[in-house]
């Protein structure tokens, strides 16, 4: 029974990682940038939800929408000012600005909210569900449901809509996409908006499960989600989901059966092992450099 519980916990954190990993993978797919600031957008999202709940006294779902809108705008703003001017620079340069933006967001949060962790109210209460002999909390159920629905919607968006097609075109070949009349700037901005919006949902769901918010929650959370994206094959939406669930389950099993402190090391070790066997991640394709 304990094993089943750990798996369910794994799916719970895994689905949060998935929401965040999608942001990394979409941005990487389209501008080939490891967006180090993504983790801190999550943190900002959590704070916005917290403020909406405690100051504006709105229901949880409205708080999430406020956070999604706020973070989407923030994501676009970051892209416009920190990454867009460097689109043609060497790849390491925007990486450094991303690190700069990450530091900036953390420090702004520290100034505004102080470094002390703030408690997050209990928003999803109610009786846990019973499945056979296993008790599953409502938070867990809601988190998994919301994540799965959002992932399906995103997949449909990318496959079925015009904007989704534009995104795929730009990530394939930005130059050719421009020639086909696709507005690259808008496409990239929308990608950042969607990624950051999903991160806000991820942040909100994370805070309901681990009810504390501080300026640093984004770092480790972002890092793990990023690893999930790489593990699954960066640039691939299904890869991000697969990677996230693997990371989530591995982490929970390690915590449950080995040691809670070693869980991070195990996660990294799995990543390294997978990359050695499949350098482009589980679902990634090895792209041969044209000679």
């Amino acid at each position, binding site marked *: 029974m304990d094993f089943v519980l750990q798996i369910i916990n794994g799916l719970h954190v895994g689905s949060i990682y998935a929401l965040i990993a999608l942001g990394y993978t979409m941005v990487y797919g389209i501008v080939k940038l490891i967006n180090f600031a993504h983790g801190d957008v999550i943190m900002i999202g959590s704070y916005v939800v917290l403020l909406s709940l405690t100051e504006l006294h709105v229901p949880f779902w409205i708080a999430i929408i406020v956070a999604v809108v706020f973070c989407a705008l923030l994501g676009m703003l970051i892209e416009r000012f920190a990454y867009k001017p460097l689109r043609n620079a060497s790849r*390491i340069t925007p990486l*450094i600005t991303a690190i*700069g933006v990450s*530091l900036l967001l953390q*420090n702004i949060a520290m100034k505004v909210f102080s470094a002390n962790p703030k408690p997050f109210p209990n928003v999803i209460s109610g009786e846990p569900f019973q499945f056979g002999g296993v008790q599953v909390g409502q938070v867990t159920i809601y988190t998994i449901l919301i994540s799965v629905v959002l992932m399906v919607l995103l997949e449909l968006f990318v496959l079925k809509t015009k904007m989704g097609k534009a995104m795929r075109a730009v990530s394939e070949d930005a130059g050719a996409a421009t020639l086909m009349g696709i507005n690259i700037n808008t496409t990239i901005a929308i990608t950042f908006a969607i990624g950051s919006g999903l991160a806000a949902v991820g942040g909100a769901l994370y805070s309901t499960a681990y009810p504390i918010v501080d300026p640093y929650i984004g770092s480790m959370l972002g*890092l793990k989600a990023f690893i999930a994206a790489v593990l699954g094959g960066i640039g691939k939406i299904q890869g991000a989901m697969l990677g996230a669930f693997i990371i989530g389950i591995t982490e929970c099993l390690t915590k449950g059966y080995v040691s809670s402190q070693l869980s*991070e*090391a195990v996660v990294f070790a799995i*990543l390294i092992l997978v990359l050695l066997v499949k350098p482009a991640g589980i679902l990634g394709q090895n792209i041969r450099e044209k000679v």
Partner: protein
Amino acid sequence: MNVLKKKIPSYIVNAISVIAIYLIISQLVWIGVINNYYLGIIIVIGINIILSTSLNLTTGFLGQLTLGHAGFMSIGAYASALFSINANLPESIEFYFALLVGGICAAIVGILVGIPALRLRGDYLAIITLGFGEIIRVIILNLDFTGGAKGLFGIPYATNFTNVFFIMLLTIYIIWTVIDSRHGRAIKSIREDEIAAEAAGVPTTYYKLFAFTLGSFFAGIAGGLYSHYILIIDAAKFDFNRSIEILVIVVLGGMGSLTGAILAAVTLTILPEYLREFSEYRMLIYAVILIFAMIFRPKGLLGTSEFSLLKVFQFIKRKVIG
């Protein structure tokens, strides 16, 4: 053109300037202009120069983004500290043996990480080294002989201005002479175009590992100097942020410029100290500077060029005499 004759004048100019800098600083310490607080900053600058020039070898000259330099530094710090604590060598030589042990341990780990990691291109190496840095940190936290989360105590005080200065010089000298040789050209060719390097007969795998290992070795040395300076070390001192700090120095100085890395190490070590007065806003300002520096000077302070004292002197001479 004779290669030897071309290089001798700049060797002489650099040697004289270096000795002058050393004498000036030690005199200023002697007469008390530089107090212990400033001396501490100078020692940290020296350590940061070693870290950034060694990272520059892999990231600047080899062109492979590494995000786990602090991991190698921590191996050097712990290995040399444990050596000093446990070995009973005469005081005068123990420290240097400890540093060597630190460097060699870091180099060995560098080889072990490098062999699999360097097969991967581009951003993946960055991720593997990042993962490696985190694993090292977690392992240190969970081991007994490293002192775990409480940290490692009882490291003898051995790092001072003189030995930091000369070890820093030695590091710069070694890295620069390697770069300015057939080995360095091979390393730079990999940064420029790996496929063309292979086609020109460069054993790229060997040179990637060579540069990566040499970089790790000096990171280990820097770690040893650091642990014998601050005397209590714990895993948190070598986290991801530390790796980023070193990377930022390299990038701001100019990837592939040793003098750039040195100038940036000096500036970026002093800057936060100045900003201490606005300590609340210190990291905020640091972040903004980072972003603006990248947007307006994406190639860093010096790009891939080197600052040459000889050229400065020749320029002054032309202005004054001619």
